[in-house]
């Protein structure tokens, strides 16, 4: 039991790093999907570019917020 506890504290920073990496995957997929939707919408209707760009940035920031929440959690595991 003691060894298990020692092992978990030793491996904790590594797990934190893996968690942060998973958060990066989530952010990448999320923002990528937003970008895909935005670019396709602009291709369909170029005159709406400004509106689409504003909404894209808003949605991207929200997704990044969640991903960074996970990154902060990973950072807390490392520190």
């Amino acid at each position, binding site marked *: 039991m003691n060894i298990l506890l020692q092992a978990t504290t030793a491996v904790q920073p590594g797990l934190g790093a893996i968690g942060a990496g998973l958060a990066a995957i989530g952010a990448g997929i999320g923002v990528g999907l937003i970008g895909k939707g935005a670019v396709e919408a602009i291709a369909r209707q170029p005159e709406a570019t400004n509106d689409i760009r*504003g909404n894209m*940035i*808003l949605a991207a*920031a*929200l997704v*990044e*917020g*969640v991903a*960074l*929440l996970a*990154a*902060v959690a990973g950072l807390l595991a490392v520190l």
Partner: protein
Amino acid sequence: MVAKRLKPLLVAAFSLGILIFSNISLAQGDHGHGAASGHKEEEKLNPSEIILDHVADGHEFHFGKITIPLPIILYSPERGFTAFMSSAFHHGTEAHNGYRLVTREYIEEHKLNEGQEKPLFEANKIYAVDASGKPDASISVLDLSMTRNVVQMLISVILLIVIMTRIAKKYESGVGVKTAPTGFQSAVEPIITFVRDEVAKPNLGHSYGKYMPLLLTIFFFILINNLIGLIPGAANVTGNIAFTAVLALVAFIVIMFSSNKHYWAHIFWPPVPLGVKFIMIPVEIMGIFTKPFALMIRLFANMISGHIIILSFICLIFIFGAMNTYLGYGTSPFFLALTVFIYLLECLVAFIQAYIFANLTAIFIGQAFEGGHEHEDVPGHEDPVVI
């Protein structure tokens, strides 16, 4: 003809030259700072300590070897108020006036946390010392000093007040009202119009005027602190969770004060099918608090991660340099180019995060006092369909 084709090549060679030569001064600066922090034995590179030191709050400003000390104001219930400049601590090597800045090396050297279940002494905190010079963790010390973050916040407040009152006076005196705006007006007016038309009006409807001062303050204060934080040597104010927590608290209080009974009715009795209702009620109640919480975390995490990335890339140069000096010099142009790219991205993120915070605050305030549509959807009031 030849000169035309030569120009892009010259630009590329010039920028490469600037990159290569600019790295030498940076290397001196950081290396000098590392030596100046008072290591007696051979200095082992500790990147996480360097990064956290730059990102956290501190009692002085330092740019390479230049240090600007800041006042330290301490209050202890036993000893009362004490105030002195942080240079008296000499980077934590000396105690002063009954207090000592306990650094990590001091804790390790004197084994202050030996044999404790929970570490009694934290690094980089000020503790009271007794007559023999030994730190005493039982005497509570309240650190009310003017730290880096406080000074930078004050600077940005003064900057904002000066700029905005000047612009307002200019408008009052008639310049830019019926004529084109001039000077600072032409820089700030589009931003204010943007906040009014894209952030306030769509989300707040007719009562946007009440909330314009709040939204403008949030936007400009976050923006100016983000931008000043990007200057090398400045403090990381928006990447401090206490700062963003207060901003989120302000947003939360404004949302609470602008809520109407439809808002609370929807939280405690949402208009959804019965089975979902009992899941939605706790979710909605939690939602009251998670929305400002997410505001806080979003701004904090974005800003601090940006700073950490920039610092990590610079530290990578020194990590490589510690392995082999020539490897350090060789990889530095590449890492510097990467750092410049991330730096430009951070400048963009500064604007985006300020916009997002203001926009989401406006959205939440708007959600708090909208409502009452469902009662207006009476049959017979539908929009006529024009075929």
